[in-house]
């Protein structure tokens, strides 16, 4: 008896758990969606949607508001969302302009009635349902824009633009969604009265969703209408929607199609394999064709998001992003290397610490962070350094002596040039002197025997006669000089 009860309780518990962990079944709802390429039909309409205001639907995008002042445009789904209570909306959008700041913003709506043109990001105020705003402009000066905010309304409240609805919004997150190289993706999920919003950063072609907000106990109107709107003010951005995909969500029990009708796994696998094979073949063919006819390959109608976006500013931005990414990568590499080095050092220090204990070498206080080979290297390099310093010293000494010598030589050279003549003169004078001395010596020897013997054979001239002769001679010379000078004077007249 008790065992059956326990079993029953267990079964209930299991069922509850299963109900909670039920995989969600997702169905694409084309009647509530639109997507580039060929977003609009030839006449500019979108099937199942109303486009009004300044909104323009073209093949590549739905431009809700162009980058001109004070424009507003809306697009609303004509069909009410009756397929399920729960939904998921994937939106790819592009908001951007030349200015550093943009305005006003873009709204994504799920309302109980069709929307109309109005003041809340292009759509009407006093709505019933949900409005998700991509608010570019900071009206309240809180420096928290661009932000993504969610506001619920029961049809009685008016959105307060001056405060960016800060008192009214349910939740918000600050995200820069302007001027991104790729479309920014927003995913809104409403399942079991839990509303979650994920926003992608628009930095790469494959979306990278990050949670922006999550709110529980949300009750949205049933059978509502999806809509989008945008408005510009004094500042203006382009507000484009590229993809608006609505999925209805079901629990496994609510699944509209029984599993029996599904394709058996094996068969499906076979088909998938064939598809893969064909796809590969096609890719190969295409690349071959591109090589063979590079001129014929032109921009075709294939979906290539970057094609729709790349204007001058976007390109510039993309280049900046790419270079930043490259820098980032290099820095990451450096970081990695640094970590490696640090690790190596730590292990080296451990080894160094272990060495003194075993080898008995006194620990070096400075060498805590060095490994043994590094130390050796440092020592050898130091040795090299001292050696080279020594060499340098030698050179300097050499240079010094050489310059000293040169200096000396220059000084000697200066004296030598003058003394070269002098020395030869000197020698001559010396030799003359020597000769004079020998002459004198011989003279002294010859006149050695006596005073009278000075002029032994010659009759000596008396000093008075000698003096007389000198006086006469000098008188004659003076007279001659006098006469000559007189003659000069006469000549002068």
């Amino acid at each position, binding site marked *: 008896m008790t065992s059956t009860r326990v079993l029953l309780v267990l079964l209930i518990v299991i069922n509850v758990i299963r109900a909670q962990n039920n995989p969600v*079944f*997702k*169905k*694409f*709802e*084309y*009647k509530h*969606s*639109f*997507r580039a*390429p*060929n977003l609009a*039909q*030839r*006449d500019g*309409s979108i*099937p*199942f949607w109303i486009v009004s205001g300044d909104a323009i639907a073209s093949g590549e995008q739905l431009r809700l508001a162009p980058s001109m002042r004070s424009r507003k445009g809306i697009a609303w789904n*004509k069909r009410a969302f009756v397929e399920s209570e729960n939904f998921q909306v994937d939106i790819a959008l592009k908001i951007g302009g030349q200015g550093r700041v943009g305005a006003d913003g873009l709204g994504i709506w799920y309302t109980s009635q069709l929307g109309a043109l109005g003041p809340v990001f292009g759509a009407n105020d006093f709505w019933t349902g949900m409005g998700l705003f991509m608010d570019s402009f900071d009206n309240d000066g809180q420096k928290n824009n661009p932000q993504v905010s969610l506001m619920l309304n029961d049809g009685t409240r008016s959105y307060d633009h001056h405060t960016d609805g800060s008192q009214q919004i349910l939740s918000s997150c600050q995200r820069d969604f302007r001027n991104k190289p790729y479309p920014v993706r927003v995913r809104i999920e409403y399942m079991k009265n839990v509303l979650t919003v994920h926003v992608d950063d628009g930095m790469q072609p494959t979306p990278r969703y990050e949670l922006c907000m999550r709110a529980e106990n949300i009750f949205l109107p049933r059978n509502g209408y999806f809509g989008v709107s945008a408005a510009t003010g004094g500042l203006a951005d382009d507000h484009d929607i590229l*993809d608006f995909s609505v*999925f*209805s969500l079901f629990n496994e029990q609510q*699944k*509209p*199609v029984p599993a029996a*009708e*599904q*394709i058996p796994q094996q*068969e*499906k696998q*076979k*088909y*998938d394999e*064939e*598809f893969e094979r*064909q*796809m590969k*073949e*096609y890719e190969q*063919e*295409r690349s*071959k*064709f591109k090589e*063979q*006819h590079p001129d*014929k*390959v*032109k921009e*075709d*109608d*294939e*979906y290539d998001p970057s094609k729709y976006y790349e204007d001058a500013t976007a390109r510039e931005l993309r280049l900046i992003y790419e270079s930043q990414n490259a820098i980032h990568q290099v820095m990451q590499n450096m970081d990695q290397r640094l970590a490696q080095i640090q690790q190596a050092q730590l292990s080296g220090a451990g080894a160094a610490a272990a060495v003194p204990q075993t080898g008995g070498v006194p620990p070096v206080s400075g060498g805590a962070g060095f490994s043994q080979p590094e130390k050796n290297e440092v020592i050898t390099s130091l040795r090299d350094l001292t050696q080279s310093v020594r060499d340098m010293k030698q050179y300097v000494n050499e240079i010094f002596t050489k310059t000293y010598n040169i200096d000396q030589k220059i000084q000697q050279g200066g004296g030598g040039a003058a003394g070269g003549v002098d020395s030869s003169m000197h020698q001559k004078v010396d030799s003359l002197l020597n000769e004079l001395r020998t002459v004198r010596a011989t003279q002294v020897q010859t006149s050695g025997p006596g005073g009278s013997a000075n002029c032994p054979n010659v009759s000596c001239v008396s000093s008075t006669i000698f003096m007389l002769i000198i006086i006469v001679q000098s008188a004659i010379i003076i007279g001659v000089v006098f006469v000559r000078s007189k003659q000069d004077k006469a000549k002068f007249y």
Partner: protein
Amino acid sequence: MRTLLFISIVFFTVFVSVTSGATFAEEKDVHDEGHIKQHLENKIEVEKLTEEQQRFHYFSMHDLNKDNYIDGIEILKALTHDHGEHPTAGPSTDEGEAERLVDAVLDDLDSNGDGVIDYSEYLRRQ
């Protein structure tokens, strides 16, 4: 009164015959080699396509966003698209009619009911 009725009947029959002329993934569409070749122009060298290739390229050319699924939007575009043979085609497909056509295709092909046709679902019908 009678003439009005007559006119309306004629109009209705013409309208239906025009719109119901658009089909998706029927035998004649899938093997419409001329049309497929038009799409493959300047992409690959086409001489002769095998049946398998025809099937693949028909699927691939309608998978506009290249997510390997064909959804309702793409079916609708497949049904309404042309290559400029009718440049003065008036207002685009009537929505009710479009809905009927697309739903018919989805009912037919989308066996797991996720709103999109994958390649296995598509091939199974061929």
